[in-house]
């Protein structure tokens, strides 16, 4: 069962000791069921904040978010979320970290499914390792396995592949696409890698610099599997890079 997102006039600001900081400003967006949306935008623009609001962790300052007509609530909709920061439970080994989502979900933790996703992300043999005993990229892969192992209706990922080498990244991109296309989940995927966005997304949302607005929503009208070297692919990529360049102040 997939889901339909509608975000309307979303605003988010934080109160700090240094005053109010506006992070998202009047962002509207809608996404049909089973679609794959990639989000790109400058560092610090508000992507992670947006994701946290979309999965119901933070309330918006104003505006509405509806998933299939009701506000986001992970107790009702099955999310598979991957956080940008380290998010493994340090007291559980790799295997039990992957099983964690299942346990919470009460879908009956299945050792086989956990095993399957551990293999998928290339971590067979490391099941009994604790998080502090594996590399940065391996930790990210455990988080990916954990999110997928709950068979989520909605996949939300915040730069899941940033710590991975290109080769591993490509493999996992393909796996993700195949899982998504087989099961028709709705996917929201934040990335800094424009090539990745064009490779994966049906839509790419380009956000402005903070406070984040929707600068442009691009429909990537290419069939899967896509070739990174094809001319239309490259032209989409260049277009998005140009859009981003407008947003990023020449720091220094």
């Amino acid at each position, binding site marked *: 069962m997939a889901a339909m997102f509608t975000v309307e006039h979303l605003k988010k600001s934080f109160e700090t000791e240094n005053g109010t900081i506006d992070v998202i400003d009047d962002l509207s967006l809608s996404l049909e069921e089973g679609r794959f949306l990639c989000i790109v935008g400058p560092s610090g623009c508000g992507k992670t904040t947006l994701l*946290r609001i979309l*999965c*119901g*962790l933070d309330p918006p300052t104003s505006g509405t978010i509806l998933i299939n007509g009701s506000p986001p609530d*992970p*107790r009702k909709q*099955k*999310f598979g*979320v991957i*956080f940008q*920061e*380290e*998010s493994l*439970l*340090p*007291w*559980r*080994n790799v295997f039990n970290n992957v099983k*964690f*989502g299942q*346990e*919470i*979900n009460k879908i009956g933790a299945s050792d086989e499914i956990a095993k399957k996703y551990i293999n998928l992300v290339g971590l067979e043999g490391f099941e009994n390792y*604790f*998080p*502090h005993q594996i590399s940065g990229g391996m930790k990210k892969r455990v988080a990916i396995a954990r999110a997928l192992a*709950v068979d989520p209706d909605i996949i*939300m990922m915040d730069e899941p592949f940033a710590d991975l080498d290109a080769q591993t990244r490509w493999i996992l991109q393909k796996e993700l696409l195949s899982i998504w296309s087989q099961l028709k989940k709705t996917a929201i995927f934040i990335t800094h890698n424009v090539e990745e966005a064009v490779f994966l997304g049906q839509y790419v949302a380009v956000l402005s610099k903070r406070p984040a607005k929707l600068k442009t929503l691009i429909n990537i009208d290419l069939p899967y599997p896509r070739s990174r070297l094809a001319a239309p692919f490259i032209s989409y990529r260049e277009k998005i890079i140009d859009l981003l360049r407008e947003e990023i102040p020449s720091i220094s």
Partner: protein
Amino acid sequence: MSTVRSYLRSAKSIVIGLASIATFLILWEAVTRVVNSPFLPGPYSVFLAFIQISTVGDIDGYSLGWHSAVSLYRVLLGFLAGAVTGIPLGLFMGIKLTVKDVATPIIEPIRFIPPIAWIPLSIVLLSGLTRFTFLIWVGVFFPVLLNTIAGVRRTSITLVNVARTFGADNNAVLRHIIFPSALPEIMTGLRVGLGIGWMCIVAAEMIGGDPVGLGRLILKYANFLQIDVVIVGMVTIGLIGLAMNYAILLLEKRMFRWRVEVTT
């Protein structure tokens, strides 16, 4: 860590431990000689008193073993009561501001009140074993409570968020994230609480009854001004406490294998 290395390490720490105890005993003997007070017996006369009380028993005929067993039982009951009340309340006070607001103004003043001051009220309101349990509880509860709250505060918000996005309700967050994450502090609270619980044994055993228990032994012989037996009581409490503490530490070691610890 390789088994050989950890074996060597524990052998080394045992040797160091024995050496420190020896140094301590020598220092004690030296101080005794210098001070030369009837109320500061040296290690040897304490040792003799120890033999006497363990084999022959005290003036009422109770042996050291029996004193220890009775006190141990009382302390364990109070300790359990402290753990069973302190940990859940600490968890709830840590996560629910309302619970904290309600509980704080009642609990906070109480925690400073000396156990001895509770004796009159405990006699009026409680009876039998519950009094001992209560007076030990007074010592155990607050360290466990405060440390549990501190542990809850240490919880990584990211991990809570992870659980939430998987659909965890408050209960599941508590069980799967907050509790395991606060566990190191909770264990520290339990160890501190165990110590304070034992510290309260004399206060608890000031209440009349059979003249048995290590606290009673101490009080009794303090009355006779036989400080060597008082020290036997102190040392016995110390050793039992040490053993219980060691048991908790072993448990901790098993539980916290996942932690990387800082040493320099």
